[in-house]
């Protein structure tokens, strides 16, 4: 019996992982178990239930946004069922729990997975390494814990069988690990857009001199119908875009139709998160900046002169 356990803090991403699970096993899957953390009414059960999931494991007591509580739920199920595959989203929660679960299972693990292949009973995962300079193919032994980048697999669709076919199992709380206590928790201010899903992303870099100047990036994004993202220093060091994620190896990966990188030098750690953009436009005053060589269209100009002109042309053109 080959079984997979799937968890994502985000219900939509769960569907992607269900597809990934069937690719990982080359179709030879006997059943997918989906862990739903938090209260799960009829509504929340309906969609996954129609996709051929075998069991929906409901852990009402678990908070899907709390990595420690998710870890506890996953461990409880793994201890009981010892699945062959555990599929997670490669976000901070997924990366936090992946290592421990793999060691618990005594198996292989890969994070930041971008592709899967299964042949002759062996599983090969693809992931980006060497700061984006290499794509590694790694053969992973089962049991395997795989943390998969968002947006890499299509969401699983409803199968022919009528909804409600999945068995619902209630998972009991095994009790908290008292060695770890969350003593304070507050929501971060969020910008609300998911850069991973945006079709057009304007990325702001250190070329912007003042926080107020980001107005230009937002105006451009509005004119293009897209979202604003940033490089790590703007988010993490300067805190200019609270609640936003940065793009790159240690942040999120984007795959928009169009990325406009403004005042971004294009260091590898950044580019690794943007390589899947279909078209890359760079605006930089330095013709030797690495981003110029990595773009489809590069405008060598001062952003303070060029962006207002570009915004005007785009608005006028409508």
């Amino acid at each position, binding site marked *: 019996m080959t079984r997979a356990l799937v968890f994502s803090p985000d219900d939509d991403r769960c569907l992607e992982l269900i597809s990934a699970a069937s690719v990982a096993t080359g179709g030879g899957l006997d059943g997918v178990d989906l862990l739903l953390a938090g209260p799960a009414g009829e509504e929340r059960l309906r969609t996954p239930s129609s996709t051929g999931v075998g069991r929906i494991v409901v852990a009402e007591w678990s908070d899907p946004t709390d990595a420690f509580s998710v870890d506890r739920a996953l461990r409880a199920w793994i201890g009981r069922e010892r699945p062959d595959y555990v599929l997670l989203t490669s976000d901070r929660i997924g990366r*936090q729990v992946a290592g421990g679960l793999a*060691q618990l299972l*005594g198996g292989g693990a890969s994070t930041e997975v971008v592709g899967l292949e299964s042949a002759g009973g062996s599983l090969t995962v693809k992931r980006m*390494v*060497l700061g984006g*300079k290499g794509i590694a193919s790694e053969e992973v032994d089962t049991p395997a814990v795989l943390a998969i980048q968002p947006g890499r697999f299509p969401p699983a669709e409803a199968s022919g069988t009528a909804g409600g076919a999945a068995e619902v199992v209630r998972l009991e709380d095994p009790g908290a690990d008292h060695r*770890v206590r969350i003593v304070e928790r507050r929501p*971060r201010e969020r910008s609300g857009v998911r850069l991973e899903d945006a079709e057009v992303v304007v990325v702001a870099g250190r070329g912007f001199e003042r926080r107020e100047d980001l107005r230009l990036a937002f105006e451009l994004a509005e004119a293009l119908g897209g979202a604003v993202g940033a490089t790590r220093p703007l988010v993490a060091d300067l805190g200019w875009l609270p609640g936003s994620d940065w793009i790159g190896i240690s942040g999120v990966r984007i795959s928009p139709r169009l990325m406009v990188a403004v005042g971004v030098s294009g260091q590898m750690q950044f580019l690794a998160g943007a390589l899947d953009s279909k078209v890359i436009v760079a605006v930089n005053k330095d013709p030797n900046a690495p981003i110029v060589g990595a773009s489809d269209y590069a405008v060598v100009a001062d952003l303070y002169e060029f962006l207002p*002109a570009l915004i005007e*042309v785009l608005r006028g053109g409508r």
Partner: protein
Amino acid sequence: MDVAALVKLALDVEGLRAEPGEAPRVDQAPTKVSEIDLNAVEEAVSIRERVGGSVTAFSVLNWGPLSRRMREAREAAKRVLAMGADRFVLVADEAAVGADTGFTAAALAAALRARGPFDLVLAGEGTEDSFGGLVPGRLAQELGWPYVPYADGVEVGGGGSVRVRRAVGDFEEVVEVDLPAVISVTQEINKPRIPTLMQILQAGKKPLEVLSLSDLGLPGPGAGRGVRVSSVVSPRVERRGVVIEAESPREAAERLVEELRRAGVI
């Protein structure tokens, strides 16, 4: 407090030559201490400065050829010792080259046990060359200790616990964790100090211990390896590379918009 800092010799990806469709020349590229691991060392040293104790750095060599990497490892060790670590333990063994994260964690656990006890293990949240972030979590499991990753701040209180400030998903958290524990840090937690000439000279006198797997009583990764890298190729990035030059910003903007319209992206 006795703190262990995990230090990986990561490939220096900046200097790596990569031809699209071919394997990057990893053997020719130098290695250096992974950037974020320096943040872990800095945090360990500053904790010792605040509350006393010791700092031991641990490293398992993952990249070959060993002959060449040993020299680089000694340089790396010197830098870490110059930053203030008291000693450096290097696990170097042909059999550990290319080992997966599970084996690396097991080797680290064995080394930590052999040279411990420790109250706290600090690591970087990921390394520059692979950014898998798996080793600290695996190590915590191996040791049976709690694991708190992504620390943007670590505060040492009394009573055998520390407080970690971190951000995960949509939340900012302060987590209190009992010691011993494994914590991974982000680049934002501190600014690693640059050692002075005197500190580097004194580092030459601090102990650097080289251990093999058999010193640790470990067999090679052998059949139990969880992950084998079968190939690495550089991605083919086909970018058009059009540089738009124009007399005025306005003209450049018009040309860009025209190009993007023609390409069908807007």
